């Protein structure tokens, strides 16, 4: 026993002691009123765990968590009180009802920018509240529906007190396990990238829409479950369950406890359900105090109380086994084969012809430099190739697939990876975590955690970053951030790599390191498109040079020929040398 205890970390020991103490209190010392409060806390734990998906991990302020809670409540309330349906049916139906609603409204709502998202979810909540109050024949109107039976499974009933308390917390523990399973470290990392560096997400084959949808539907499912348990506890369902008050309670619990993690949910729920008891003296001003608490938490402790208990997470060092996972696209393409074919591509932005009938092709193993003065359309071309922008006309094909209208995610999955002019890295993640998020999404079967980790390790090694694999991205100097971006692009095993000004802002030695990495990659069969206007960087690197000017491709050929070309000289060097 003591051996087991000593093998645990200090935090785990503390947790065990706290849980045991709480359980002892709840089961043997708490009055039936106290038990009721604890039951309520358990219900809110489930709701907050759900809310953490969308508000914490997806980073979107949803004001519909109360609505999902209410839908769960009404599904159970109506079926159980009016039709006598049993718990084993009503409980799943409550979860399904809330999830279905989330799926339906997700279509218009989820792609909205942050403030519109909050608005739309608030509108949904108000709409449901109106329906509950006014559709008297079904919902019982403002008074609601009494006569909801206790939870009954076979002959067993959880009426009040200990049995209901245990049942609710049992479901809460199940909810914790589901949350844990859904939020494996890798997915947490992917969510972090989505919040911190949203541009990078689709470019690495992750569909941010699907990710947010998953978070939203999960939050709804948890909310529905909590609502169902709530009406079994109160034995009546009323519009109160749909009111803004529940939403505010949930938001406050999440902010006070913490937006991430089980501990945060438990602390927030326990604290906020007990505060009214501890502050009885405040009477009706109690809710004012809740507002003050919420405000103060956001200003002074934005990560919630749980963050005070957390040790700094030390990321597991990447497992050292060999790169067994890399058997995908990269090595299967032979040098010299055409891998990207752009023809007759045009794009207008307002009055500006950003690209004008551009033709460009790239072969495997080739490093093509794309130069041009500021505003010539270089980044526009990169954006269109990677699907961030869409061409007005023309086509892009790769390895027999037409990618002209494909989404960024689909394009990334076809093996086209990119880096950004300004590195899009999540500051809070380690290099290995940041690279692994891209390794996880190449859409093949080898998506076991170990092979993902191995792919990331290999990509990091290729870029000479092994030594700093555990450093946080936010702490790295500019030159290394660029290399991390390249490593991340490689982790998806691409066969085309598009780099947007990889050398900008780097010292000559750093530029040389980047060039060396790119040469190695090309030698292994990767096609590389480098956008830059630094000729000194491209001269020893590029096997071919293409020059854009005012949206038109004015030259394309061997480096020396292009540099000697008069049109290129005029367009590109004219301004500088006049």
């Amino acid at each position, binding site marked *: 026993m003591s051996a087991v205890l000593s093998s645990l970390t200090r935090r785990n020991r503390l947790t065990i002691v706290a849980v045991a103490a709480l359980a002892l209190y709840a089961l043997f010392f708490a009055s039936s009123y106290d038990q009721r409060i604890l039951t309520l806390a358990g219900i809110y734990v489930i709701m907050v765990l759900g809310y953490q998906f969308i508000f914490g991990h997806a980073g979107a302020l949803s004001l519909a968590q109360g609505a999902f809670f209410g839908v769960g409540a009404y599904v159970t309330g109506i079926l159980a009180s009016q039709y006598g349906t049993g718990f084993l049916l009503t409980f799943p139906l409550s979860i399904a009802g809330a999830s279905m609603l989330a799926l339906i409204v997700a279509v218009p709502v989820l792609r909205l920018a942050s403030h519109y998202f909050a608005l739309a979810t608030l509108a949904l909540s108000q709409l449901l509240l109106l329906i509950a109050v006014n559709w008297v024949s079904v919902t019982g109107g403002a008074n609601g529906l009494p006569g909801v039976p206790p939870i009954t499974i076979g002959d067993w009933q959880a009426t009040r007190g200990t049995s209901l308390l245990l049942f609710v917390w049992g479901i809460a523990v199940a909810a914790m396990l589901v949350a844990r399973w859904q939020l494996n470290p890798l997915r947490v990392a992917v969510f972090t990238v989505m919040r911190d560096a949203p541009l990078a997400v689709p470019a690495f084959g992750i569909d941010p829409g699907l990710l947010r949808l998953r978070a939203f539907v999960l939050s709804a499912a948890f909310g529905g479950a909590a609502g169902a348990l709530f009406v079994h506890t109160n034995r009546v369902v009323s519009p109160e369950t749909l009111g803004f008050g529940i939403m505010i309670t949930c938001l406050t619990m999440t902010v006070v406890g913490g937006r991430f993690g089980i501990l945060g949910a438990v602390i927030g729920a326990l604290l906020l359900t007990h505060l009214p008891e501890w502050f009885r003296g405040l009477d009706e001003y109690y809710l004012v105090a809740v507002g003050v608490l919420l405000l103060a938490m956001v200003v002074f402790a934005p990560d919630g109380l749980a963050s005070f208990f957390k040790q700094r997470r030390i990321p597991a060092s990447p497992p050292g086994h060999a790169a067994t996972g890399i058997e995908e696209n990269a090595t299967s393409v032979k040098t010299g084969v055409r891998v990207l074919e752009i023809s007759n591509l045009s794009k207008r932005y307002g009055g500006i012809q950003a690209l004008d009938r551009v033709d460009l092709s790239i072969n495997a193993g080739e490093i093509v430099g794309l130069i041009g003065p*500021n505003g010539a359309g270089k980044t526009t071309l990169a954006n269109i190739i990677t699907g961030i922008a869409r061409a007005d006309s023309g086509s892009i094909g790769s390895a027999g697939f037409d990618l002209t209208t494909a989404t960024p995610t689909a394009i990334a999955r076809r093996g086209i990876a990119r880096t950004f002019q300004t590195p899009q890295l999540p500051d809070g993640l380690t290099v290995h975590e940041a690279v692994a998020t891209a390794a996880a999404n190449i859409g093949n079967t080898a998506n076991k955690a170990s092979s993902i980790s191995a792919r990331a390790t290999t990509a990091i090694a290729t870029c000479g970053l092994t030594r700093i694999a555990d450093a946080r991205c936010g*702490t*790295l*100097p*500019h030159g290394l951030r660029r290399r991390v971006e390249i490593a991340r692009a490689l982790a998806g095993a691409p066969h085309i790599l598009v780099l947007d000004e990889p050398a900008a*802002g780097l*010292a000559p030695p750093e530029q040389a390191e980047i060039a060396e990495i790119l040469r190695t990659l090309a030698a292994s069969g990767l096609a590389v498109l480098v956008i830059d206007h630094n000729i000194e960087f491209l001269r020893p690197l590029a096997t071919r040079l293409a020059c854009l000017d005012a949206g038109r491709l004015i030259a394309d050929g061997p480096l020396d020929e292009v540099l000697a070309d008069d049109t290129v000289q005029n367009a590109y060097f004219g301004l*500088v040398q006049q």
Partner: protein
Amino acid sequence: MSAALQIDKLTVRHGAVVAVTDASLIAAPGAITCLVGVNGAGKSSLLRAVVGLASSEGNISLGAQDISRMSTEARIRAGLAYVPEGRRVFPGLTVGENLLVSGPSNARARRQRLDDALDLFPHLKPRIHDRAWQLSGGQQQMLAIGRALMARPDVYLLDEPTLGLAPQIIDDVAASLRQLSASGAAILVAEQNAGFAERIADETILIRTGRISNP
């Protein structure tokens, strides 16, 4: 009389990235000082730090006054003027409003300075009631310089004033900078166009990967 801008051991960091290291320089009254370097050398960061938009270590003084601890607003009021890269005129304000907005609080003095600015940039006169976004790049650059002029600063900081401009317009910019300098102001220009710097600078300072190398 105008005061000099003196920068002493200035270091600018963006998170973990060091953009400028230990930079020291003086921009003297009545002279145009050019800070020349490639894209990403740290020119913009240095200017932004001087005006207080980026945090920095080291000393910045304007004449006898240490301005390193002041807010951006206070530094401007102390006599700095900043013309950023990309001009950043207020697109929805008219040309006249763009000029007036940085003028003094006395309405009559403000009008007087507006007339002065329009004398210096006569091209802006016929467009005074147009919105700033309707102007060409060159006209916007004139407007941005004119807007800085409205506050009668001792020191002008200009970030890439020729970027994306046609050669003729660049001549106009050069002429107006010379005129400002002749009136006694200190002018510090960040520039990657070496040709332009050579043409207008009384003094040229090279900056490479965040360090100033005096020739």
